């Protein structure tokens, strides 16, 4: 079964998908996409390099034991991974590679700061849940999960659900398809004022020091 993504216009309000599980803890961005694939100047088409060194055997053939290569996991949009997913480098190529692979959410008990920030800018939802529930999800690959972005809630097939933290601003951006640069550009006036305040403060310090 493939994933379904409900959206309000271009936004992201709900995701229903089977889970694909990578049980390892501390999966770093060098595993998500090794540095030797970072010489690109594009952000598209990086899915073929995702988890490259785990996904392919020495001869270049797909590793049949790797979860994302298994036929039953084709089309899964929710990755459930061990604690501290996305640690390491700031490369945004990591979420670019994962979304290009069709993933739209990563569930873990801890997600590294920069990876989380990068993911939210690319429609990849970081879902942090308690370790106990994560252990259960890690042990039950392939179950159908539903993520409700409005309620910030992860729903299990047996009716249980868990709330996850999601910054109100990031949530609005996801749901409304608003981009953060657009928001920052609208802060122009405040940025001008800040620069003027600083310039004034600096010239005042200079005057008082000349007077001394």
């Amino acid at each position, binding site marked *: 079964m493939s994933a379904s993504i409900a959206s309000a216009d271009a936004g992201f309000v709900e995701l229903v998908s089977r889970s694909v599980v990578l049980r390892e803890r501390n999966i*770093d961005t060098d595993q998500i996409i090794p*540095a030797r694939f970072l*010489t690109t100047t594009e952000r598209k088409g990086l899915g073929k390099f995702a988890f490259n060194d785990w996904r392919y055997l020495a001869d270049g053939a797909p590793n049949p034991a790797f979860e994302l290569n298994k036929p039953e996991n084709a089309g899964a949009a929710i990755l459930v991974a061990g604690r*501290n997913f996305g*640690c390491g480098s700031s490369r*945004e190529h990591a979420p670019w590679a994962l979304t290009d692979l069709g993933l739209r959410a990563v569930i873990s008990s801890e997600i590294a700061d920069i990876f989380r920030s990068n993911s939210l800018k690319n429609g990849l939802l970081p879902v942090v849940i308690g370790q106990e529930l994560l252990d259960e999800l890690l042990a039950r690959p392939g179950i159908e999960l539903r993520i409700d972005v409005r309620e910030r809630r992860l729903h299990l097939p047996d009716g249980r659900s868990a709330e996850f933290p999601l910054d109100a601003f990031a949530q609005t951006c996801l749901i409304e398809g608003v981009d953060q640069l657009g928001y920052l550009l609208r*802060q122009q006036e405040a940025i001008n004022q800040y620069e003027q305040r600083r310039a004034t403060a600096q010239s005042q310090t200079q005057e008082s020091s000349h007077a001394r």
Partner: protein
Amino acid sequence: MTTPTTLFDKLWDAHLVAPESEAAPAVLYIDLHLIHEVTSPQAFAELEARGLKPRRADLTKGTLDHSTPTLPAGADGRLPYYTAEAEHQVDTLRRNCARHGIELFDFDSAHRGIVHVIGPELGLTQPGQTIVCGDSHTATHGAFGALAFGIGTSEVGHVLATQCLLQRKPKTLAIEIEGELAPGVGAKDLILHVIGEIGVNGGTGHVIEYRGSTVRALSMDERMTVCNMSIEAGARAGLIAPDQTTFDYLAKTPRAPRGADWDRAVARWSEFKTDHGARFDRVVRIDASAIKPTLTWGTHPGQVAAVDAVLPQAGDADEAKALAYMGFEGGAALAGRPVDVVFVGSCTNSRLSDLRQAAEVLRGRHVHPRVRMLVVPGSEQVKRDAEAEGLDAVIRAAGAEWREPGCSMCIAMNGDLVGAGQLAVSTSNRNFEGRQGKGARTLLASPLTAAACAVAGQVVDPRDYLAHAVKEVA
């Protein structure tokens, strides 16, 4: 009396364009934006697509380091790029900088080098600043009391377009370090030990301030090594309050303020310190006097051991996987493992003092015939200074390769890499699977340890290789 605040609070408050609210993150002003070829092209493309221009090209500085070869140009004058794509990436940054009037430290500059080496050495990095770069080791600049952190490429675009970032205020973690480091034990051993103590995710969501008498006694090069690896504990930034050591370093840099401006700058910089009685969200205490030369043994920087320790038994599937990847068995000694490659370099340990330490061990000795050793200075300036002291001659005479500045083997995307199954002792910052090349195995260590392992051809205690053997009597 005002409430005592931390260094971090002062940095944060001084850069608030708009405070955070429930509905929106803070808008934080950025004083210095460092860019390099790998994480900037898509950001410039985004600006172009939206018809935007960089707001403050004057606060943006570029260098070429990650994709660049560390071998010199050939007889035809061309640099031996690893791939045509790498060369194209470098040319793309050149075009973007030229087009927007951004200063680029290119191959014709006397100051090109690793982004986190040249910022401080030029004096671009100053206390009290906010500094960002599309590179997680931007934490390095926190050694000067600047709030410095790595950002993604979308955020590189945000800073180019607005000189600002949207940020939620992180928590604060004080790491209080007391006690004198033993001879032969340095800043790299200290930070590896700290990461081992708090864990590879121990700093997530926090900004670290390194404090205490041990930290005060460190040189700027050593402070940079410590702050550099803050991200390896999950913290986006690490801070050390500026003091006379900081000012003495900056006074010698070409871009630092001069004359009356210098005095005003020092007065302003001196205010950036944590007030007595200020509260941190978390405090961790470390006894530095007990630290021995330390290396990683596994596949993340939190898996560390003293050089004389035995490897831990696998406590779970992840540790078993790490041991298997490394070709190690739990319970065996780390010392005595045959070493194939030694790398001295990277934004963690490629400054003049690091190269001096490696050369101190190599002087009058020879790299073991089994070992390939690369020494890669962090910048053109470091290279010139090292050559003026004759360090290059010592390093070459010992049979190691002396290269051109760049990230080199730390990231294995420029032609310098470790072969599959080979064991490397590296002064870099990440021992992740495949970080130094597909299938490569990495032990992170100090420059002293790395050089000693190169001579011995196996993992050894560097204290046996110092001019005056300093190892305590067992």
